[in-house]
């Protein structure tokens, strides 16, 4: 059955996307490690980390798209799952510092020492073990999403109400992690990492490896998402997105479909966060900012939601733009960013991918048989997340 799902998932587009990222996972580290600096084709180490950061954002955007673009759940709290995964990784990295902290305490991180903590709190236990930490990267966001989703979907909290309570969730976590009494380093967060798996995090080889891991994780995420959306469950998800009540009346347990998508998506976001932290070298409560979660939504929208490649393109393009503008026009980059969002929503409602299809769709109109089936479904559908009572809707 799994092979069948795998087979179905690997339509031509998915193969291309996965192939590209697997190639990137090999080529970039090679260009970094094997080609000496100064020579044509060398990728500087800092660029490797930067690209790694973009790719982890791309995983996050893809995770959001799975729930929003395919299942119609607009989560304004995906940054929280990302940050939780990041914190789990950060806690592992903190424990690896060992006696190299400024106070030389073998167990307690520095911030606990100078706030006079005497022993490690219970929730920090076990994080010195890499595999335990990796399990937590998956479990903490997964369980939170499961519990949160279980109650929310069972109570049929939908549309904007769901968006707002996910925002409340990430805002509450933001405030909680800001508290120094929580034992997560407060506003400063976790930083000054030394080792990962016994190798210095700043080593060129580790940076290249982390990048490769991120690219592979992205390829796997695309594969998993592709498997889900091409399965029967995926069709039900789209049905839930387009007409939730009707799907329910047809006998599907809508809440379980949503719960599944939400939990899988949260786990992906957690993994993205875990890959992000060692590459940027810090995790702090700022990642829980509701604004960050909104930005993720915007990446997906810019790239084109309801597609697998769209959010990836969106995350990379928007962040490239951000990196570029903050250095070239430090005073004006917010204008550019703001204008981008306005223009994309006004003129590219289906994002960059939609634009692509518009341009090439015309060219293909002569060969209608080559139009991919999945995208036709989406284009026919209503807006993925219509809500409220003010909108004219087709008769139900």
């Amino acid at each position, binding site marked *: 059955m799994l092979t069948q799902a795998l087979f179905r998932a690997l339509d031509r587009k998915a193969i291309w996307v996965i192939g590209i990222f697997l190639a*990137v996972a090999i*080529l*970039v580290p090679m*260009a970094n490690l094997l080609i000496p*600096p*100064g*020579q*044509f*084709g*060398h*990728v*500087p180490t*800092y*660029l490797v*980390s*930067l*690209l790694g*950061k973009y790719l982890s954002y791309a995983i996050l955007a893809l995770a959001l798209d799975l729930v929003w673009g395919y299942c119609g759940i607009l989560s304004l709290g995906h940054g929280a799952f990302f940050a939780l995964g990041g914190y789990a990784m950060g806690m592992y990295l903190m424990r690896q510092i060992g*006696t*190299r*902290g*400024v*106070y*030389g*305490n073998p167990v307690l991180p*520095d*911030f606990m*020492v*100078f*706030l*006079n903590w005497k022993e490690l709190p219970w929730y920090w236990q076990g994080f010195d073990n890499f595999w335990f930490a990796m399990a937590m990267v998956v479990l903490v966001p997964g369980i939170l999403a499961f519990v949160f989703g279980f109650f929310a979907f069972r109570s049929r909290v939908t549309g904007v109400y769901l968006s707002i309570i996910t925002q409340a969730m990430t805002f509450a976590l933001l*405030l909680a992690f*800001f*508290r*120094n009494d929580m034992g997560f*380093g*407060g*506003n*400063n*967060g976790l*930083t*000054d*990492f*030394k080792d990962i798996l016994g190798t210095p995090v*700043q080593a060129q080889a580790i940076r290249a490896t982390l990048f490769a891991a991120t690219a592979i994780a992205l390829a796997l995420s695309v594969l998993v998402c592709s498997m889900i959306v091409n399965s029967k469950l995926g069709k039900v998800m789209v049905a839930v997105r387009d007409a939730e009540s009707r799907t329910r009346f047809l006998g599907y347990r809508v809440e379980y479909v949503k719960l599944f998508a939400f939990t899988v998506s949260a786990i992906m976001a957690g993994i993205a966060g875990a890959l992000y932290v060692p590459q*940027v*070298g*810090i995790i*702090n409560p*700022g990642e829980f900012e509701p604004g960050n979660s909104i930005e993720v939504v915007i990446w997906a929208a810019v790239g084109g939601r309801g597609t697998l490649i769209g959010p990836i393109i969106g995350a990379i393009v928007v962040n*490239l733009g951000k*990196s*570029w503008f*903050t*250095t*070239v026009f*430090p*005073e004006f*980059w*917010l204008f550019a960013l703001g204008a981008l969002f306005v223009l994309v929503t006004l003129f590219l409602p289906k994002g960059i991918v939609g634009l692509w299809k518009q341009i090439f769709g015309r060219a293909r109109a002569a060969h209608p048989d080559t139009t991919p089936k999945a995208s036709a479904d989406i284009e026919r559908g209503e807006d993925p997340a219509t809500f409220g009572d003010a909108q004219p809707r087709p008769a139900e």
Partner: protein
Amino acid sequence: MTFFSAKRALLTAAMAGTIVASAVPVMAQDDTIKVGILHSLSGTMAISETTLKDTMLFLIEQQNAKGGVLGKQLEPVVVDIASDWPLAAELARQLIEVDDVDVVFGCWTSVCRKSVLPVFEELNSLLFYPVQYEGEESQRNVFYTGASPNQQAIPAVDYLMSEDGGSVERWVLAGTDYVYPQTTNKILEQYLLDKGVAQEDIMINYTPFGHSDWQTIVSDIKAFGSEGKKTAVVSTINGDANVPFYRELGNQGIKAEDIPVVAFSVGEEELSGFDTTPLVGHLAAWNYFMSVDTPENEEFISAWQDYIGSTDRVTNDPMEAHYIGFNLWVKAVEAAQSTEADAVIDAIVGLETPNLTGGMATMLPNHHITKPVLIGEIQDDGQFFVVSETEELVPGDAWSDYLPESAMLEADWTAPINCGNYNTETKTCGAAAQ
């Protein structure tokens, strides 16, 4: 600058387009020295940091008018960290690796410093950090030109305990919940207990960032202060939350004569945002006030106001810190005849430059500087009236003597110790530093 953007554009093309394109074309030796400016120009911290960016541009322009450094002109490279701390680390790396800056002036918050610190360590570059901070740190590549707790908090408490300050016996330590207030209050609490203040005479209160509803807390403070003993508030409340806090104090009728508030994060810049008439007499402890009457200060203020084109603009303590840090760096570069980080680090310790309050700022082996401590009372024109000043310059202490874990630590970046956390008991250095 145009040349610069071209190079950046090239780099971006490299980043955006292909992995193949090489981003390394380090141009032939430039005839300028590049100075990185790493401040938030947008987001929550822009309110404080934008002025510091302008200050740096102003100082660089002045230095260039004097002929630059080592016969070369200085070239500022400004980036916006947008109050986003992972971005700060990324941009710090970019400044050093791509833009080839020789020194960076920047950061305001502790988290920004903590975030970029590993980058400066790894790439062996220089950071001058201009803001008062919680201490408990000394890093080879960082120069702390703001105050450490012993240069701000402890003298302020001493003043309030003295007869001049009102012989205060009860203390409210109110702060925003982040690392600077937490650490400062830990140090102060220990210090007060050592001075014989009873535990029940100390009230500690933390609030979130940007807290705007102070009704309950101010009325608690009022109640705490009306129990017969003279009470004072030591405020480590962060920037944004101060305006509503002081407004509430004024509205609930807490006057400075009854319960004075001494703040460590409120300076001229923050006060320019509100009407200070109800606040007259509340205090702040800094190492510089705009109202200090010295020729150096007068010259600095008028040159700054000329540069910025407005006589309304104020100067403040972190600006002076940048002024000192910049001048020390220039002197160190000239002494070392090089902008190489190692040479500058070796040359800078022991150098001194005049500060704006009539004293000399000396770079100490622990990479902190000597400072006078001034206590000022807020006046109705938004300025401070200095009511107390330490007689001698206070050397910055990287490791507080009032925290048990750090009392025996010391930082010394000169031979033979050459380490940021030297343990005076075991005579060894922590493992982290080299």
